[in-house]
């Protein structure tokens, strides 16, 4: 399967060998190898959930591997935490940044390493300023180092973080440190992006880099070697000079899934009635005006990268965010913008990605969660009737096959899959007309995924329209009747996905990245 060895040689700075990491119900990494050599940029690609972030977390000591070893400059090492990693010359620039917003550039640069600037316990601000300017020169950054970091651009913040990491590894006497850049360009404008990559070529002379990005073109242009991960396994690695975009896309997506994995045979033909229609909806900076409809019993997959605007569209429909322009109609009724309670009242359900913090009240029982939206209907003479509460909860628990010891069990004590089924049953019992499913199978084991797919099919048969965003493209394709492809805030294409004529992931991934 692989066309080069993952082997390390004398130029290897960091190598991970046979790393395995298991989370409850999911094998995140399965015997993964990765070696990074001196003065090299390695592009790491893979779909969401392929295991890239877990692998990086292991390399900076945020997670510990269950099996496998980390070899630094020829020596086997255990990395206890990120500060341990930086002592060994490995540092990461996170997507959301790790600078302190209330401190200035120079204070952030030297945080916790101010010893050189002290005279009888007092810090010399001038010495710090001079040293900071000197450091930033190395990444070709010329800014006022007294500014708070909130006042410099995202690209400049990344440069500051890179400069700090380079300096720290120098302080610890590590030559050729490894810098991990996690999706550095998602927050950058085009000009800033070019600037980052031109500086990256400079940094290469003194460091190695792992570059993670969903924009494959970037990876092709800026890395020396490309490593592809899929489902927590090494797929292959290719020298960037020999790599082709289409080939990498194919490798990322793979093509091993059985026909009935997503219950395609149970896919219903949607009705004629339009449940949801979105007209010219837009939100500045997130997505441009777009229109689409969802019919009765139809499953519409919204596909696109994180940051393509699909989440923002869903938030606007669910009323969690206020749109700038455009309208959302549920049936004939126009929904007020930015009102989640009006959306719920009209019949829009939203199953958020983070069900533990948003979808479920974890410290409430299964029954209380199931009944949460329908309390009005469970009253007798103005007071909640315990008997009717119990009846409603029991009905939905058996309907959705929620495996729980009793209806009074706290949701915190259920498995991920059963929590998700509880969330779905909550909306089912409230008789929603449109359901927004944000990564419904995230963190759910295989068996429970199957049951959730069945539930989704059942919802469709009952005429509920759905907007889904899935963990993988395959899941989107498998579940959806129709797909809307989004890229950089625009709706770029609409693709039919009837059960007889499913598009292939390769067709779609080219539109996304």
């Amino acid at each position, binding site marked *: 399967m692989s066309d080069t060895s993952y082997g390390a040689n004398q130029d290897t700075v960091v190598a991970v060998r046979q790393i395995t990491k298991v989370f409850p119900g999911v094998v995140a990494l399965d015997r993964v190898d990765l070696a990074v050599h001196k003065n090299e940029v390695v592009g790491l690609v893979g779909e969401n959930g392929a295991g890239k972030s877990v692998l990086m977390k292991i390399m900076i000591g945020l997670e510990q591997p269950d099996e496998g070893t980390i070899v630094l400059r020829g020596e086997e090492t255990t990395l206890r*935490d*990120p*500060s341990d990693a930086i002592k060994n010359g490995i540092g990461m620039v996170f997507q959301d940044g*790790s*600078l*302190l*917003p*209330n*401190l200035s550039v120079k*204070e952030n640069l030297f*945080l*916790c*390493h*101010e010893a050189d600037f*002290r005279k009888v*316990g*007092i*810090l010399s*601000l001038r010495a710090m300023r001079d040293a900071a300017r000197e450091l930033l020169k190395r990444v070709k950054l010329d800014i006022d180092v007294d500014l708070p970091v909130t*006042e410099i651009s995202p690209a400049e913040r990344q440069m500051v973080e890179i400069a700090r990491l380079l300096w720290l590894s120098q302080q610890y006497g590590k030559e050729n440190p490894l810098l991990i850049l996690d999706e550095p360009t998602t927050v950058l*404008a085009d000009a800033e992006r070019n600037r980052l990559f031109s500086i990256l070529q400079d940094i290469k002379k003194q460091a190695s880099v792992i570059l993670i990005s969903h924009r494959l073109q970037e990876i092709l242009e800026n890395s020396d070697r490309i490593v592809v991960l899929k489902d927590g396994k090494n797929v292959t690695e290719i020298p960037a000079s020999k790599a082709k975009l289409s080939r990498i896309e194919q490798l990322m997506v793979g093509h091993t899934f059985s026909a009935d994995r997503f219950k395609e045979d149970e896919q219903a033909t949607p009705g004629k009635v339009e449940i949801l229609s979105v007209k010219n909806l837009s939100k500045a*900076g997130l997505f441009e005006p777009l229109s689409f409809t969802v019919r009765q019993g139809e499953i519409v997959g919204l596909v696109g990268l994180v940051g393509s605007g699909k989440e923002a569209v869903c938030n606007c429909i669910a009323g969690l965010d206020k749109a700038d322009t455009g309208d959302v109609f549920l049936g004939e009724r126009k929904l007020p913008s930015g009102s989640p309670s009006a959306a719920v009242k009209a019949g829009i359900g939203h199953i958020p990605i983070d069900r533990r913090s948003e979808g479920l009240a974890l410290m409430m029982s299964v029954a209380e969660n199931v009944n949460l939206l329908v309390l009005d209907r469970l009253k007798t003479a103005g007071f909640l009737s315990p008997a009717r509460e119990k009846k409603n909860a029991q009905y939905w628990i058996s309907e959705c096959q929620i495996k729980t010891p009793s209806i009074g069990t706290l949701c915190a004590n259920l498995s991920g899959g059963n929590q998700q089924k509880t969330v779905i049953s909550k909306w089912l019992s409230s008789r929603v007309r449109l359901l927004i499913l944000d990564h419904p199978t995230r963190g759910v084991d295989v068996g429970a995924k199957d049951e959730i797919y069945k539930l989704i099919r059942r919802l469709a048969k009952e005429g509920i329209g759905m907007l889904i965003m899935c963990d993988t493209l395959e899941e989107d394709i498998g579940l959806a009747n129709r797909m809307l492809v989004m890229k950089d805030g625009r709706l770029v294409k609409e693709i039919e996905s009837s059960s007889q004529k499913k598009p292939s992931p390769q067709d779609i991934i080219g539109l996304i990245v």
Partner: protein
Amino acid sequence: MTEVSSKGGALSWLRERFPASFAAARTWLRRFGILPQILSLAIIVGVFAIGTKGKYLSWANIQTILSLAAIPAIYAIGLHQTIVLGGIDLSVQGVASLCAVFVGILLKNQYNSYNVGLWIIPISLAIGGAAGVISGLLNTGLRIPSFMATLGMSWILYGMAVLIGKAVNVQILDTRIENFVSATLFGIPQIAILAVLIAVIVQMVQDRTRFGRYMYAIGGDEVIAKQAGVKVKGIKIAVFTMAGAIYGLASLLLACRLGWATSRMGAGLLFPTITAVTVGGVALTGGIGGAKNAVLGALIVTALNDGLVLMQVSPYIQQAVNGVVLIVAVALTLDRKKLGFIK
């Protein structure tokens, strides 16, 4: 990303500097440190100067304001550091009461033969500091949110004060500190000079020492600070200790100024102190504002109340005005994005 047009001369100059929206006002306030406080003070002074036909600006009244603001300012210098950390300290009243009782017992008095003289200064610092250590340990060791840990501490210390002091008013017969407090130097009340001196020292610690940097790092983002290698627990305990020691000093000064030491001395201290801290521009979300803000806040609150008294406004309305000022100050300094939701 929007770019403000550079054309339009004066208008855009104004627009850039004088924000039109509430959110912009907040950013502006934060960026300019103490300028908004100085402006508010100028407005207060201006309004009362006109309202009292100049009486407000008399040297005697200015002396009154400075001397009245000093002790609240010292309390605020102590308390604001715990807010900079991202926590809060509600134990002021308990610490003040306990210190007052010890001052009464240990300085020369009619009830016993103790007379520690000026040793009372380090003793007060130590009592306050010890209370701070305990609050800090409760917060970091038992992981009790600082507002609950210190609120509990406040009542424990107050209970101890009543138990030890038996609710007796003790007249302080050693008048050396009282004399220092009420004297003036070049016409400026010495107590105000002392408050400024303490502020300068604390501000210096905040700006120019590692301890100070780490205090702000924790207030900015505790997780990031910890990952960078800040010893979060140690710094927190040290900050609570410092805060407590400063309350101890302020309480000694307050008792000596009153001439009486009683376990009731702490009552009603918390609200003005927190008001001073927030009005001074220290954000309740942590990481923003320093000793200079605490002092200015105390000065603003005192100047406002003094003006209201001179204008003969009903004391009930004065209290309500203070409440409004507190809420407005919090609204302007709180960084809601950092909180997610408000409890």
